[in-house]
């Protein structure tokens, strides 16, 4: 598993809460640090792609793990 600096458990939350909580978590990270997010909302795959495109952060990986979606996002800067 890739290294990460902070983890966000957004399982059980529906759009837009995973995105909103990710935005808040990323705000606490330094540039280049990585946030790992776990989510169960099927819409979160598209949502995090759009989120990274709009914010300039990098979606390093997106996949499924133990029945949840897992995203690794590297903060820009």
């Amino acid at each position, binding site marked *: 598993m890739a290294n990460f600096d902070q983890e966000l458990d957004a399982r059980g*939350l*529906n*759009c*837009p*809460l995973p*995105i*909103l909580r990710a*935005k*808040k978590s990323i705000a606490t990270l330094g540039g280049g640090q990585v946030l790992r997010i776990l989510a169960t909302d099927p*819409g979160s795959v598209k*949502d995090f792609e*759009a*989120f990274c495109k*709009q*914010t300039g952060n990098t979606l390093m990986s997106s996949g499924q793990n133990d029945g949840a979606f897992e995203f690794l996002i590297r903060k820009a800067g």
Partner: protein
Amino acid sequence: MAKRLQASERRASILAVAKVLFADKGYHGVSVDEIAVRLAVSPAVLYRHFSSKQDLYEAVLSEIACTRENYVDVVVRGPDDFGGMLARMTLMYVESVARDPDYLRMELHAALEGSQAARQFFENRWRPFADYIEFGLGELRKEGVATGIDARIAALMFQGMVREALYAKLVYQADRFRDHSLVDLVKHLIAMFLRAVKLG
């Protein structure tokens, strides 16, 4: 002679006509024959694209689902405060419904017709508001704000308010509110809601 349509054009025209009829009469009030007559084709043409009326109905719902509101934009652009986010989400939703009021009529029919799948579909459209309000007020309560508010009931209140505004303006076209645009009406209601949960 009627122009022969490409398969994709034919499918789109069937969906468009079916949506209007389902919105006017509900699932049970419309037959495949009636949709075919409206399209000036034989029922066999419909069955080439959809295996059954249920299949066609679900395809109409899927069309609505494809235009799902993009709340990512709402989150990214603008401050994160509870009221501001809620207002941006709500206005995006209301404007989207106003562009296609047939959706509301289908929702009303679905509420009475007992189709679990359709009811679930429409409930899911409201779900982001219920979840956002419950979760957001829960977080604020931990900070000592909005205390003494039942977040789940507050979410119900909000949904009832906005839904009724949509019905008043888009379904009943109520004369009583002719001086208010839908957006103005909803903005007023959001402000009243925020005061009710001690955030305004």
